[in-house]
């Protein structure tokens, strides 16, 4: 244990995902010995990101304005929506340049054991987007692990009465893995060879 403010810093850093107590301590001491200007810049960005960045009111992606860059882009195909768990998955798919439609960010996957059910995700918003019949294909690009698959199963069943084409990324993606770790080539290929989901 360190004195007051140093320990507070270590405690706060330790709350970040992927940061254990040892890493928290290492980062804290790095900051203590860093140039004050560098630390000020970091603090400023942290505050700025919380103040300025919000979530797109249409798709739930991180956005600098009411709507994200992709939703505002009129060249994007409005007939196809790709459903992902997190904003970082949008970034991963954009890198492949395979997809020209729109996105819908759920904000996670259904995880009953963590107490996360369908109502805790942006599923109602997705249904609202599908209501006008403009969308003809829904690509379910949730993570290729158990929770991602279960979420895809739930969504496929939910939208079934709407009669649109529902597809899932093809195999080749790491089963049990995170979508964000898939390389561009693999992810691009998975997009191209997406398969029809029938529930």
């Amino acid at each position: 244990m360190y004195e007051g403010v140093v320990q507070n810093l270590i405690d706060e850093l330790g709350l970040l995902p992927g940061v254990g107590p040892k890493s928290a301590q290492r980062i804290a001491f790095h900051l203590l010995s860093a140039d004050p200007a560098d630390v000020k810049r970091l603090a400023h960005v942290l505050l700025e990101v919380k103040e300025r960045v919000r979530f797109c009111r249409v798709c739930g992606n991180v956005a600098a304005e009411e709507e994200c860059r992709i939703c505002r882009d009129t060249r994007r195909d409005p007939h196809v929506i790709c459903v992902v768990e997190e904003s970082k998955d949008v970034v991963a798919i954009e890198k492949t340049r395979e997809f020209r439609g729109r996105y819908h960010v759920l904000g996670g996957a259904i995880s009953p054991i963590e107490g996360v059910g369908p109502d805790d995700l942006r599923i109602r918003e997705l249904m609202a987007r599908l209501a006008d019949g403009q969308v003809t294909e829904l690509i379910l690009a949730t993570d290729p692990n158990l929770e991602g698959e279960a979420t895809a199963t739930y969504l496929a069943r939910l939208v079934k009465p709407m009669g649109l084409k529902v597809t899932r990324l093809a195999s080749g993606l790491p089963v049990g893995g995170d979508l964000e770790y898939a390389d561009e080539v693999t992810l691009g290929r998975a997009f191209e060879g997406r398969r029809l989901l029938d529930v």
Partner: protein
Amino acid sequence: MNLYRDEGIVLRTQKLGEADRIVTVLTKRIGKVRGVAKGVRRTKSRWGARLEPFTHVDLQLHTGRSLDVITQAETLRPYGEALVTDYPRYTAGIAMLETADRLTMGEKEPALRQFLLLVGGLRTLVEGDHEARLVLDAYFLRSLAVAGYAPALESCARCSTPAIRAFAIQAGGVVCAACRPPGAAVPAAETIGLMIALTRGDWASADASEARHRTECSGLVAAYLQWHLEHGIRSLRHVERL
């Protein structure tokens, strides 16, 4: 015990650091173990679905200072693959995994009967011959019994008279008119009959039961389970009934 090996069912996984996971497994001989699976979330991971919940795996672990490390895993039965394509069965299966985790308190305390019950429950769920919620309720009743919390179903939990009248969770099951505490539920006789059938594995009777008795049975079993487990079963709220 530096390196050890056992078969088990993966109960849950938690993200650890950048690409690792902590995997909780209920094993056949050793009991519940927690091990780190390194690199499991990366594209080129060699683990694949072997360390996903529901998988019946043959594992090798290395004893570590704080957490053990999984060094080998081979799939024996991939129950998750079948369950994940059927949402009601999937949610029932998740509730089983959570219950197995909660009813086996300590790590590395042998829990062979809980392990066998879980394997049997998952197999029955995957086979799909019975309604998912019935399979789940049967699993709840039997795993509670193994844990020492079997509800009295055939005679009064307090005085043992066979003339039963109500179901009182705090009394430990069915009670007679004289022993009945205020506020105890008065379920249909068929509902108690269904609970007995599920406990005994009498599927012919259970499958023939009416929907209203199944619903009442699920409600009583859930309330009884939640009363015996301090924080309740979180996933139960999300179990669907078709």
